[in-house]
Every structure is written in C-alpha cells, then in structure tokens.
C-alpha cells in the first residue's frame, strides 16, 4: 500500500460510519428485546428484512409515496414484533433460554420462507426515495444514501434514547429490565412491557431494514445483516444500549477498512476476530453487565 491517500481513507471511514449507524440501530432493536425480556432474538435480521419488504409492498406494490409508506412499514414492523411476542415468545415464558433462542432461529427461517412465497426469492431494488446527488463533507465524497441512512439512524436512535429517559413508559421499560419482580410490585404490567419492547424493537428493525434496503437493495436473505448486528451486540454487551451504539460504529468501521484495504474476503475475518478478542478479554462485552448469562 504505497501512497496513503488521506482523502480516500476519510471516504472509506465515512462509509464505514454510515453502515455502522445502521448496525447500531439493528443492535438497539436486539438490545431492547434482550434487556426487557432476556430473550436472545436471532430473528432480528429477518424482522429487519420483513420491514424492508413491507416498505417495498406499500411503496412499489401500492404505489404510496415514501412519506406514507415509511410510517406504514414501521407500524407493520411494530405489529410483527408484538405478534411474535404474544403468539410465540409468551407461551415459552419460563422455558430454558436455549429453547427460546432456538425458537427465534426457527422463526427467522419461517419469515424468510414466507417472504419468498409472497415476493419471490429474487433480490430487487426499493423505489428510490433518497435521491442520488452526492454529498460532500469537505472534499470527501459520501454516497447520498449512506449519508441519509447515517443521519436517519442517528435520529431514530436519539429518539429512542430520549423516550427511555423522559417518557413514563420508558421508566416502566427500564424498571422491568432492572428487576421484574420489583416492577410488578410497583404496579407495572410486566407482560405488557414485554410486548411493548418487542413492538418497539420491531419498529427499530423495520427502520433499519428500510435504510439497509435503500442502500443495498432487498432480498429475502438480507437478514444476514442481522449476523453483523449480532457481532455488534456481543462486542458491545447484550444488555447495553451504549454498547450497541459504540459496537455498531466500531464494527461498521472495521468492515469498511478491512473490506477496502485488505479485500472483501477479510471483512468477516476481521469482525469475528474482533468478536473473539473482545470475548476473551471481556466475556460479557465492552459495556455489558458482568453477571449476565451467556449462551
């Protein structure tokens, strides 16, 4: 690598931050569910994928404008999350964590299959709602889609964090995450909080899905994005919102750097090496709580 080009490096870094923000948003969806209900939800990538397809259905299928299709897709993602909680997770309450974990894997496959039946297994493009005019930060070029994706992901994350701090339901959510029995004793309807956590995670995942789909197109297998998000939350700590944010940006940057400077085949090697390194030093993740269960 002779002739290090700082401008090119800056552009790669910005692209990495862009996809990192999407990873962070997906990680937030994962952490929301884990924190509130202690369920390791491996179907988060597929929930993201369904969110993207819902947007596709509303925008391309029904021809709705983006400002109509996006809220509908987000609402659909929320409903999907709530429905999964009520129909599949709640009956499993009290079963071993491994059993519930396996159920979410199965659920992921079912979602992929359903989407393939309804929309065909072929990849497609989302109708463009972002535009293509490039964005320049100083001299560095950033794809408009990535820039918008980054900004929107940051806004959504900030919105969630603000809601947890200020909204009364946010207090119920954090109280339930901290101590279920104590939350019950304060009159908090804990099962309703579980359902709300899944619904909010569904909204966050759908938002991430729309953004990921806008950048890279959609396909029933785009849920593998959830695998990177899993690395994010394991690195950051399963139960840490801050961990999801930092982990998302770190993994996004690492993927961009290794993919560009070492070659695409190094992406997975680099991220999973990071995963191993973090787990060896801090088995509960960078920001995770020490005593949490591991699988």
């Amino acid at each position, binding site marked *: 690598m002779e002739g290090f080009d700082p401008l090119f490096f800056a552009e790669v870094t910005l692209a990495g931050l862009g996809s990192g923000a999407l990873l962070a948003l997906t990680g937030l969806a994962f952490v929301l569910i884990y924190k509130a209900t202690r369920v390791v939800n491996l179907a988060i990538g597929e929930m993201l994928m369904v969110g993207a397809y819902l947007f596709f259905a509303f925008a391309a299928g029904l021809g709705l404008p983006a400002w109509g299709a996006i809220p509908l897709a987000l609402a659909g993602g929320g409903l999907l999350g709530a429905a999964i909680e009520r129909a599949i997770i709640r009956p499993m309450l009290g079963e071993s964590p491994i059993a519930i974990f396996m159920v979410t894997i199965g659920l992921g496959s079912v979602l992929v299959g359903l989407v393939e039946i309804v929309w065909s297994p072929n990849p497609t493009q989302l109708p463009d709602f972002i535009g293509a005019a490039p964005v320049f930060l100083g001299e560095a070029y950033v794809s408009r889609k990535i820039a918008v994706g980054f900004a929107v992901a940051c806004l959504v994350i900030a919105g969630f964090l603000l809601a947890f701090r200020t909204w*009364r339901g946010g207090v*119920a959510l954090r*109280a339930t995450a*901290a101590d279920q*029995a104590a939350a019950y004793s304060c*009159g908090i309807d*804990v099962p309703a909080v579980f359902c709300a956590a899944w619904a909010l995670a569904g909204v966050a995942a759908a938002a991430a899905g729309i953004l990921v789909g806008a950048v890279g197109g959609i396909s029933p297998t785009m849920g593998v994005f959830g695998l990177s998000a899993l690395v994010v939350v394991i690195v950051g700590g399963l139960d840490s919102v801050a961990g999801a944010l930092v982990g998302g940006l770190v993994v996004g940057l690492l993927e961009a750097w290794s993919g560009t400077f070492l070659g695409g085949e190094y992406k997975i090697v680099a991220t999973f090496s990071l995963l191993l390194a973090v787990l060896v030093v801090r088995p509960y993740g960078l920001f995770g709580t020490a005593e949490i269960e591991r699988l």
Partner: protein
Amino acid sequence: MSAPGPILDVANIEVIYNRTVQVLRGLSLAVPRGQVVALLGSNGAGKSTTLKAVSRLLEIEDGALTGGAIRFDGQDVAAFAPHALVRRGLFHVMEGRRIFEDLSVEENLTAATFARPGGRPSRGFALVYEYFPRLFERRSGLAGYLSGGEQQMLAIGRALIAEPQLILLDEPSLGLSPILVEEIFSIIARINREQGTAMLLVEQNAAVAFAVSHYAYIMETGKIVIDGPVERLMHDADVREFYLGLGAAGQGRSFRDVKHYKRRKRWLS
C-alpha cells in the same frame, strides 16, 4: 363505608416451591383495617413466602399456592395478576428494598405511579417528600448511590405513591444501623396513624416490630405457633425469652444453658 371484615384474610394456606419443597403448612392470619400486624419468626420460617403468596409475586419464583385461600378486601387474590392487585391497593415492599438502582430517585417514584389508576398520585410526590425530606434532596441522583437507609425510605416512598390500603413490609430493618431502624419505624408508625394504612410487617427484630404493631403472629417452619395482641405477647414468657432475648427477670440469657435448648426444641415440635 368499607366492606366489613379484615382487609386481609389468609386462611390455611400451603405453598410449595419448585413442585417439591413445602414451605407453608396451613398458615392462617388476618390483618384488620388500619392496623399494623407483625409476622415474626426465625430465618427460613416462611415469612417472606407468606407475603409473596399474598401479593402473588410467588409465581415469579416458581412457587405455587396449593391450598387455602387469601382474600384481600373480601376478594380472592387468585383472580388478579400481581400488578392488578397493586392497583387495587395492596403494595408489597420487598425484602432487600429492591429499588431500581440505575434509575433516579424520582424515576423510582414514577415507576410506582403505575400503581395508581390514571397514573397520578393525588398529591404528586409531595406526600413522599413530606415523610422523607432526604429523598427530596437527592431526587435527581441515581437510586443506587443512596445509603441503605435512604434506599429503604425510597422503597417505602414507592408504596406511599400507590396510596394503598395495605402495605406488606418485608424486613425494613435489614442491614440498617439501630438509629436508622428507629427512624424508619417511627415513620412507619406515623404513616399508619396519619394515612390509616394497614400493614403486615415481617421482621426478625421483634422488639422494634412490637413497638409499632397492634397484633403479632409468630411462625416456625411454615405455620403460626403463637399469636395475640402485642401487649399480651410482650408479657408472654416464651416470647420474651426466644424473641426479645430477655430472661424471666429481664436480663439477657446465655445459649450455654442446656435446659433452655431442650425446652426450645420441645416447644418447636
């Protein structure tokens, strides 16, 4: 105006944990409206289990009520989910305080507003801060940074937010210095007097529990062995010796007394 009969009536209950371990064996007790009733006993006697059976937090810990009935305000508690019972006026202050450590003091109180229909305590948090001015000073700090005594105040403060008819208090003296214990219990007595809240108080510290209670039950291995008005129990020879640590003449007794040990065993069986 209210229905006649005690606010809480526990009749002959049996509790089994994990489908194998029987913890309560036919326990009965009652809490009259507006009164403080103490439930005393040694470690592992089943005091906390009794409270959890009443508030239905038992099921979260894999315990099950296998016999008997618990009636709160005339209605069987089995008909309600734990949070629904809280909203009907039965608040459980759990052992070990169980405050939300990563929430601020005020957020802890906000969490308890879910116990109020409509989510609004009639006087906001003012009532809590009136009883516990120290919580007001520390209202925006993280609850985890409070001292043990302040955390207990917060736990009781959450109960006040709910404006309940009955508070179940599980070992409010746990881990507190004697001076704090005295402070907390004088506030407990004031709350009972001024708010008319009935309380079922679980304690290991019998002396301090007697000071605020009207009636007391003493339990051993899952059932009640003695009960009566506090004035009478305070003069009962066995209670004085085993629970207040006083001999017949009023001075402390030694555990080396073999006869004492034998008598105790016989009494327990």
